[in-house]
């Protein structure tokens, strides 16, 4: 389980913004926490899974993609802000995220 500190959210935010800027070829200034990943920047579930892989590696997380899949079905992620919030929960709770139903 990774330690969360004041910088963690900023790091996560930066990684998410860098990822979508590159992957969706949009200007970083066009992104904010309310940006809808699908309807505003043409994101998709494969991008989401790739981002999760990046965070798994970055924070050495012990979490199954399947667990995240089940969590997302119950707590859909639409905006960049929601994605950052969910990533913070994953970093903090790993596989126990499923208990947050």
């Amino acid at each position, binding site marked *: 389980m990774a330690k969360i500190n004041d910088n963690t959210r900023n790091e996560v935010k930066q990684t998410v913004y860098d*990822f979508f800027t*590159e*992957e969706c070829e949009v200007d970083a200034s066009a992104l904010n926490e309310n940006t809808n990943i*699908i*309807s505003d920047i043409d994101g*998709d*579930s*494969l991008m989401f*899974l*790739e981002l999760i*892989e*990046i965070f798994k*590696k*970055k924070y050495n997380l012990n979490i199954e*993609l*399947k667990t995240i*899949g*089940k969590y997302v*079905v*119950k707590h859909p992620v639409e905006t960049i802000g929601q994605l950052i919030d969910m990533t913070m929960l994953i970093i903090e709770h790993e596989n126990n995220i499923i208990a947050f139903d």
Partner: protein
Amino acid sequence: MPLNRKIKSIGIIGSGKLGTDIFYYLLPFNFYLVWKCIDADECERIESTFQKKLTRQLKCGIIGDLALEKIKKSVVITSSNNDLFPCDLIIECIWENKLQKQNLFHEIADVVNKRCIIASNSSSINPSELVDETKILNDVIGLHFFYPIMLKNIVEILKNEQTTTETMITIVDFCSIIQKKPLILNEKHSFILNKLFLEVQNEACKIYAEGELSYKQIDELINTNLFPGGVFSFFDQVGIDIMLESVKNYTEQSEDKNKYQSIINELENKCSKNMLGLKTRSGFYNYSDDTDKEGMVSENDPGNNYVQGILLRLKTVYIEKARQIVDEGICSEALLEFAAKEYMNADEGPFTIARKFNI
């Protein structure tokens, strides 16, 4: 001589959602991958995205320099069928249209090596319908992955009378290498998972047509009581035009040509208005306007008794179809329970629901 031969090189034809997902899923398994796209422009787009992803994976420490070099040497992105020659297995995943797939199979028949297994990822067309056996001597099977592949640990393998034991052993071995559980089906009973959920989808369309519940209300009932994702939201994600093609194909395979008419009516209605789901930002739900993501019909309160009756109808069609599949010996109860849970990312499959509610 061993019956199985090891698959070392794989051709993927098509760069849509599934083709892309299959390519990136197979990438870490050290196969030689040939990704065949429709033309040079598409190759350029795919190559650029691929390079971007590799650079990012290197930067994030997911792969190292050596792995990067190895991956680059083991991937060919091409628009030429001739590059498919060395492949031991080819997975077709182009648009869900029988004629287009037939044409493609005839095109590649001349260039593939004779021991190559040709597989179709079609979700609704049997592989034997795609080939003219006088022209294609290779073994042709169905290899139906579910999207997103990383989350769905099940693959439907479709075989027919012509499929050799050697091919089946090879493909089952391949599934084990790529960490997918195979659900082996005869073509007579193909696509059972889609057909299982089609019963619920068709019933949901009938219920909507009765006018008491909105898409969202029906989806919520299904979400809460049967499986996540709902029905109408699922159509939007898959693409309503793709769903329509698939349901028409299932109708062709069915003795009762009116069996899926309710679902066809709903899907045709959306297609005629170019409301194709997420890709057009509008389908059974509206994705453009933040004020209207609640479903496109005003919501009534039809009363609890009515809702409970509807729920029983949905559960019953789901469970009855699952029991029919098992009773006909198509698949064991345990495997169908597992496969249904995998497909829908559900905590409970149809048989657990049946026991829980004494249906």
